[in-house]
């Protein structure tokens, strides 16, 4: 058996890098979050104000609204991506002519930077000029205006996100599916299990760790979405697509409200950790501790 020292040595580079580039900045942000600090206030210094920022956040309507729309966005986007991604991953497990070609096509959206994605979708959905509103109007008589309709803007962003990130889910699920051992499936078929039974009792439990890991990644990235929304709607119409990422961005960049912006970030980070922890504990941890 190998000694634990080797384990720590293998972990050391990871922990070191994350300490210097993750933990130290985090400590700084937590420190700032207890201060009122705007370099363009009458007093530009950092002033300690205890838990004032945290008290203020509870009544901050803009912030609470942004949490609400973010949760909705994450729910619709991630759930759709997971379902679509799984269907596609399963479809890619079969052999068919031109499979590698289609797989390459399917991964293309991933290599587009979010700001490019935002730009293209903006051009495609510009009211009355973009190709999507144009043909929706011409063919179906539907008028779509992401500048006035909160529903249109929100839906566009969800669809854009699904388009952009489903390939990531597909790829990670393919990787999970290909490394499954074939024996249990053969055994189940011999035992006469139907497809649904195989899915719920064999496939799903076996790929659960990968599914949860993927959901985590998508969840976190969706929560941080800024660039695409920034390009597409800027958070509008009104505050209907002002996700927390966008909200924080506006608070910290143009408004230079470093103190309160840090508080919001700490809270958002905390909420994210709690949500993920719950997900993790309920779905994965029992399994890992059983095996480890």
């Amino acid at each position, binding site marked *: 058996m190998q000694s634990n020292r080797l384990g720590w040595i293998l972990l050391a580079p990871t922990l070191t890098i994350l300490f210097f580039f993750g933990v130290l900045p985090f400590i700084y942000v937590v420190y700032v979050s207890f201060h009122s600090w705007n*370099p363009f*206030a009458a007093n530009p210094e950092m002033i300690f104000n205890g838990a004032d920022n945290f008290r203020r956040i509870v009544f901050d309507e*803009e912030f609470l609204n942004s949490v609400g729309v973010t949760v909705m966005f994450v729910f619709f986007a991630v759930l759709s991506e997971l379902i679509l991604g799984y269907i596609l991953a399963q479809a890619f497990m079969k052999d068919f002519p031109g499979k590698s070609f289609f797989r390459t096509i399917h991964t293309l959206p991933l290599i587009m930077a979010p700001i490019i994605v935002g730009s293209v979708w903006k051009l495609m959905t510009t009211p009355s000029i973009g190709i999507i509103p144009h043909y929706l109007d011409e063919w179906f008589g539907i008028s779509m*205006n992401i500048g*006035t309709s*909160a529903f249109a803007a929100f839906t566009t962003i969800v669809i854009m996100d699904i388009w952009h990130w489903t390939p990531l889910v597909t790829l990670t699920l393919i990787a999970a599916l290909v490394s499954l051992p074939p024996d249990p499936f053969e055994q189940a078929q011999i035992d006469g299990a139907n497809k649904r039974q195989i899915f719920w009792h064999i496939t799903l439990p076996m790929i659960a760790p990968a599914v949860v890991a993927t959901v985590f990644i998508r969840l976190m990235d969706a929560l941080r979405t800024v660039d695409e929304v920034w390009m597409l*709607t800027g958070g509008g119409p*009104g505050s209907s697509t002002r996700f927390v990422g966008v909200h924080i961005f506006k608070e910290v960049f143009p*408004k230079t409200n470093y103190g309160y912006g840090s508080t919001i970030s700490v809270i958002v980070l905390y909420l994210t950790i709690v949500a993920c922890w719950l997900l993790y504990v309920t779905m994965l941890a029992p399994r890992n501790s059983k095996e480890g």
Partner: protein
Amino acid sequence: MRFALTIGASALAFTIAATSAFAGSNDDWWKKAAEPYQGVTLRGVTESSPPSLYIREVLAPQFEELTGIRVDVETTSWDQMFDKAIKDMEAGTGIYDMVYIEQDIIYSYLARDFLTNLTGLIADNPDLKAPTYSEDNFTTFADYFKDGDGNLYGVPMEAFIKVYLYRTDLFNDPEIQAAFKEKTGKDLKPATTHADYAEIAQFFTDYGKENDMKLWGTTAQAHTGHVASWYEYFESVAPTFGVYNWGIDADNNYAASVANGGSMNSEEAKEAMNWWLSMRDIAPPESNASTWTEVGTTFGAGRAAQGLVYGENAGWIAADKTKSLVVGKVGVALPPLADGVLAEAESGEGYIGYYDGGAFGLPSTSKQKEAAALFLQYIGQDEVQPDWAVAAPRVTNKSTYDDPKVQAMNEELGGYYDMLKDKGYLFAGAPAYPFHAQVREATAPTFYKILTGDLSVSDGLDQMATIAEEELTNLGYRK
């Protein structure tokens, strides 16, 4: 086309311009003045607008060839530029020797002593004073970059006014004129009042519908999630109704609400908002998602008969065939005004629109101030201006207007430079607030809700005035 209006279109033109660098008689002075700074590299950060790109592609290489001082200019987007400059100056890192200062940030920088007093720096170092540079050469726009004592903190490099742009081909079409006369009983000519403007706008929107044309009567910079709409209202619409400085009274404890002595929610402000929203409703559908960029594109695509358009865009709309379908069909006029506003603007009490632009400033944290001062003087000379104005329409020095190249361009731009020269004084830069972006961002979400109809004009402006006062109290400006 003679005018290379964008860097993209004119990489070649710049190479030519660079090789034909003006052969000044003062070359020797520059060489001598730069002697102590050999091997120095100056770094600047700016927005990637055509005037800035001209600095990077033309003036910086020229300057390096002449003096041996290297100049690196980082061009980036509007949001990023301020953030990077602020972080550098706040932390005192000294990365940048030159920062772009726009009207909306200058007073914040001055309040924090982020910038070097150029007048003082040059006065204290007579060896640095270039014979061809003088602050007297600048137009009045430079005054917006001065402190109370008249010291200059930035060398102007961009200057525009937001003008009333109209389509001369439509306004001068006899058939359209007759139809307009029949409908309204008036002659079709650029509006001087809001009612006239609205009438013309309605006429053309109807005209477009009746003739199945993609034509509307006005533009509207009415994005529902981008501060461009906020700016159009406060800088370009509200002043024409007599609401100045965002309706905030700096001399009265920064009051914004009528109750406390401000005018952000005054009757005039509400009238202005109602008028503007009614214009937006008959503007092209994309107006709800339009920033200044899209307003320019809308006008350039021939989709609007008239509108308020930033001068920097008026340039390419009027003259750049690669981007605009209405080249040579554009006229400029003063924005429509409410009664008494013109008189207030002439007496200096008010203004009729936005005088926009920016300057290059020297951060206090720079470690190479002397060398940077040389470069700033270099780009402030009269001699470099005409070619620059042609490459990127902007005029910052008085003598530039008289240059034959610029005069020729004035023709193409429908008399835009004449208006800048003769009527520029009626326009004003941003109010002298060190809290510009803070109050803007605090009130913007409510403003967007007025645009989407979630709030009525009256309630929305009332709330905005309250929020503005709260924010000013939080920031410590309002006591």
